[in-house]
């Protein structure tokens, strides 16, 4: 039996662990086109700020890889032939498979404006991108950041940490408008300004200006020009579905899979950022770009590839991130609509966050410590916890485990409710009685 896994990200490595846990002798071949193999991609943000070194981003030791006993090929897969059950590799060789996992992740949607190919126009997808940014980010230089979501701020924070002057250009009127509410956006913007970032709303780049092949500035739609030494962008990501598409697998925004992570070809599975996963609880197929779901999906796909019939039950999407230095937890469904600064999904993002059904908002805290709850009929549907993270873990459980909150619903929705106290009391009571 040969298992082939395309992609060396967390979904791929988890699949290897799952397969090896059951099948001690089957051959596992991992194929990846990132020269650095498996590393923490979210950790790239902390590499930019200097909180971690690049060698610290690699979670596994040589011994741990040896125990998993798999073949690693640093190849790009060019084509899947589902009839012959072979993969065409970039060194012209063919590799046959019995079971295949596509865990190819997603790529940063490129800028399409003139000048986007100039030296100094940068994204943050891979370790090599982060290294490139660090090479450019010299103290005293000026950078323009465009885009939205978490990665745009990670770029901003990383550049600030390196002593670069940052101008953050937003097409819309506030930051991350389809996940944060207006108050939360303003908190983040205020902190960015306090850190020295110059914010420009309703500002869209029409052209990136260059000299001798290098960025020197931008021209905006309204005709203004601005000088800069580099431009970093994060305008959304797109699942890498090209292989699946040319192999005629069912796709939508990502590769469509059932709850067993299986595509419409029973020998081909997909997991992680590339997979659009069916959720039996909601009947929807959604994309996430989150580390833990990618890990869980990879693991479940691996188990199913070895013949365990294990459904993947989608967990409530959660991210803990820093927005302008403020720790923020986002859980469940918290927003909706479109954000002018992003195309589709972003890194560290979930489509579920924008599937807000009927829910009433309860909120408290008006400085940096803020909690916003999305209160459904008997359950909490989502939460945003900014600053003080005391409530983050209990809310994660209350939302994920769908704990009935009808006893505190009125209390939460009361004008000037002390939400933190209500939740703490409820949680302690729940622990004692459950």
């Amino acid at each position, binding site marked *: 039996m040969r298992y082939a896994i395309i992609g060396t990200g*967390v979904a791929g490595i988890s699949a290897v662990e799952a397969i090896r846990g059951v099948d001690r002798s089957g051959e596992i071949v991992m194929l990846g086109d990132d020269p650095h193999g498996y590393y*923490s*991609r*979210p*950790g790239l943000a*902390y590499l930019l700020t200097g*909180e*971690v*070194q690049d060698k*610290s*981003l*690699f*979670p596994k030791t040589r011994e741990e890889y040896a125990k998993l006993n798999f073949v690693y090929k640093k190849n790009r897969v060019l084509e899947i032939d589902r009839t012959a059950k072979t993969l065409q590799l970039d060194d012209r060789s063919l590799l046959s498979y019995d079971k295949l996992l596509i865990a190819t992740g997603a790529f940063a949607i490129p800028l399409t404006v003139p000048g986007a190919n100039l030296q100094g126009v940068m994204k943050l997808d891979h370790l090599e991108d982060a290294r490139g940014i660090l090479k450019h980010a010299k103290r005293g230089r000026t950078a323009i950041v465009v885009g939205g979501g978490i990665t745009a701020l990670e770029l901003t924070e990383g550049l600030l940490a390196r002593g670069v002057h940052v101008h953050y250009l937003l097409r819309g009127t506030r930051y991350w408008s389809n996940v944060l509410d207006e108050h939360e956006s303003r908190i983040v913007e205020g902190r960015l300004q306090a850190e020295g970032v110059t914010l420009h709303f309703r500002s869209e780049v029409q052209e990136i200006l260059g000299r001798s092949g290098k960025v020197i500035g931008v021209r905006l739609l309204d005709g203004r020009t601005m000088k800069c030494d580099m431009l970093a962008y994060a305008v959304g990501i797109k699942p890498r579905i090209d292989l699946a598409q040319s192999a005629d697998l069912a796709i939508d925004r990502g590769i469509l899979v059932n709850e067993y992570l299986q595509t419409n070809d029973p020998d081909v599975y997909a997991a992680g950022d590339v997979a659009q996963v069916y959720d039996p609880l909601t009947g929807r197929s959604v994309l996430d770009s989150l*580390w*833990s779901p990618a890990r869980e999906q990879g693991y479940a796909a691996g188990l199913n590839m070895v013949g365990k019939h294990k459904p993947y039950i989608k*967990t409530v999407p*959660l991210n*803990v*991130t*820093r927005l302008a230095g403020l*720790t923020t*937890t986002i859980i469940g469904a918290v927003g909706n609509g479109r954000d002018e600064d992003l195309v589709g999904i972003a890194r560290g993002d979930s489509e579920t966050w924008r599937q807000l059904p009927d829910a009433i908002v309860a909120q408290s805290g008006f400085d940096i410590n803020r909690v916003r709850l999305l209160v459904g009929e008997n359950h909490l549907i989502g939460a945003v916890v900014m600053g003080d*993270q*005391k409530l*983050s*873990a*209990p809310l*994660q459980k209350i939302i994920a485990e769908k704990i009935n909150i009808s006893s505190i619903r009125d209390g939460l929705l009361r004008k000037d409710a002390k939400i933190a106290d209500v939740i*703490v009391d409820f*949680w*302690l009571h729940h*622990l*004692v009685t459950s």
Partner: protein
Amino acid sequence: MSILNVFKTNASRRTTASVGYVVPDSYRCVQCGICNYNCPINIDVRGHAWRGEPVKHSECLTCGECVARCPRGVLRFELTDLFIESAS
């Protein structure tokens, strides 16, 4: 998780030094390695987080560096049952 520990993510080092250990919430962890990078005695805290295991390492000083530096609230101190029994 014991009630005593629920909201005490940063129990002081003094209380935990002899009777506590660091416990991860794997679901929050993105394996960035900040914990390992800051561990003064090079314990593979991240590996524990991956496996969802408490850092029951004989050499752990419970200095709290990993707990404090983790940007995602993955790690917390948990007191051992022994302590809870004697406290209650």
